[in-house]
């Protein structure tokens, strides 16, 4: 038997639980031409909030605890930090004037920001957002990924057609390997054993074995591929083909194409839901996000966002 007071308390508890002040899972979609970020609740696939971020927001990185979202802002010479719980802009940080690729280490200790024009990667302390070191890499560094143990950072050097492996202890380049033409997005598997480099100009994906930094395969995909993500226990790789408006599906065991999914126009950023099954694709031209089922290879939903949806990087907390 509830008394009136009990009911009030119960309602209050339920209300608290249903407010968006919880952490993951959300997708944070940078809308570059609208100067904002759409926050999609992955449980309902609805945009629950839109946060204004000036400076043409492009790259996205979500802290492993889901508390913070870092958004690179190339025209504001750095990045913005969103408080993920409050869904508000927390602060902005200046790095340099071509900030694009951005990522957070899985141990949540460091933040890495690549500079497209300066050919550098800035290493920041995630706790105080201060630059520890700026590492010179190849030309036009783009995609960044960190190994699951936070020990290695991988950088796609777009104009050098290479990927560099950086030692995160010494903060020096350990090895650089040639990939296809103009690598942009990178994806790393959950063991850290493989990195997939998406080559925009050669329309293919280079598969790198990270221990020796050796290319073990090159897989043809669609026209002007941009980025990639893994799903279903790393068994499938999904690649956005900007010019075709499609997603190439690659079996990571046989390293062959097993499907092609039509999405919107100019698909760019791509990420995997925490359920490891649903894939989110930002369609730049269509101002929306396609949701795919990695098992059935069907588009299950389309979520409206805003102008210039880009979402380059890891835009869903792992």
């Amino acid at each position, binding site marked *: 038997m509830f008394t009136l007071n009990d009911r009030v308390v119960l309602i209050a508890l339920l209300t608290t639980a249903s407010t968006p002040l919880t952490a993951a899972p959300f997708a944070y979609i940078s809308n*570059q*031409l609208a100067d904002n970020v759409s926050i999609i609740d992955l449980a309902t696939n609805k945009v629950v909030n839109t946060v204004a971020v000036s400076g*043409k927001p*492009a790259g996205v990185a979500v802290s492993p605890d889901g508390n913070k979202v870092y958004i690179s802002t*190339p*025209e504001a010479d750095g990045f913005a930090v969103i408080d993920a719980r409050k869904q508000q802009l927390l602060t902005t940080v200046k790095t340099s*004037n*071509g900030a*694009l690729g951005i990522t957070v280490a899985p141990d949540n200790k460091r933040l890495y920001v690549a500079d*497209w*024009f300066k050919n550098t990667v800035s290493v920041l302390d995630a706790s105080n957002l201060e630059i520890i070191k700026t590492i010179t890499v190849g*030309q036009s560094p783009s995609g960044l990924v960190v190994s699951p143990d936070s020990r290695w950072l991988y950088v796609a050097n*777009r*104009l050098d057609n290479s990927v560099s492996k950086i030692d995160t202890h010494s903060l020096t380049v350990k090895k650089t390997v040639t990939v296809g033409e*103009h690598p*942009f997005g990178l994806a790393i598997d959950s063991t850290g054993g493989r990195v997939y480099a998406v080559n*925009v*100009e050669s329309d293919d994906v280079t598969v790198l074995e990270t221990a020796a930094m050796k290319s073990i395969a090159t897989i043809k995909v669609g*026209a*002007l591929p941009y980025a990639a993500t893994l799903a279903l226990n790393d068994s499938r790789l999904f690649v956005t083909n900007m*010019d*075709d*408006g499609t997603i190439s599906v690659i079996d990571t065991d046989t390293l062959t194409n097993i499907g092609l999914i039509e999405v919107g*126009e*100019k698909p760019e950023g791509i990420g995997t839901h925490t359920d490891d099954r649903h894939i989110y694709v930002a369609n*730049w*031209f269509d101002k929306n996000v396609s949701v795919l089922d990695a098992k059935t290879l069907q588009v299950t939903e389309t979520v409206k966002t805003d*102008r*210039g949806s880009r979402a380059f990087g890891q835009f869903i907390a792992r």
Partner: protein
Amino acid sequence: MKKILLPLAATLLCFTGLANAHGPVRQDTEETITINAPAEKVWGVIKDFGDIATWHSEVFTATTEGGNVKGGKRVLTLKDGNTVTEELKKYDEAGMSYSYKITDMSTVKTINYAGVDEKVPALPVANFSATITVAPQGDNSQVTWKAGYYRAYTNNNPPEEMNEATANAAVKAFVSTGLIDLKNIAEK
């Protein structure tokens, strides 16, 4: 002074050699027009990819090869004599829509900027693609023409002739003019 400028010029030259650079911000233009004619009639005017010169007043002539299928090409000669080569990426007869991209352009002029000769293309953009769609609206129709592209200058700090404002103005002018021309022809 010369010694200082030379390495800089060499660095810039590397950037200008790119065919398809992806600077941080791609631009867009989207224009829509309502036409007082059935969608089938409007589509009939624009459906042949190579026939743009018959309805767009800025296009003087167009040659074509390959037809209305993916990979089909058209070369537009604009009124000012400059040329733009475009390739079909998608053709959707039922949806009354097609998408294409610019694969080549003639040079309007060469400007010297930051110590480097820069070629200003016929349409001052880079990596341009567009989609035109006819949608029925009762007995009338609505045509949407949208384009995505980068400014022509792919390095940092562009000259005025190759910046975003110039790119946006040129695309908007070309698209708007074409839609008004199309309306005039289809409503006849």
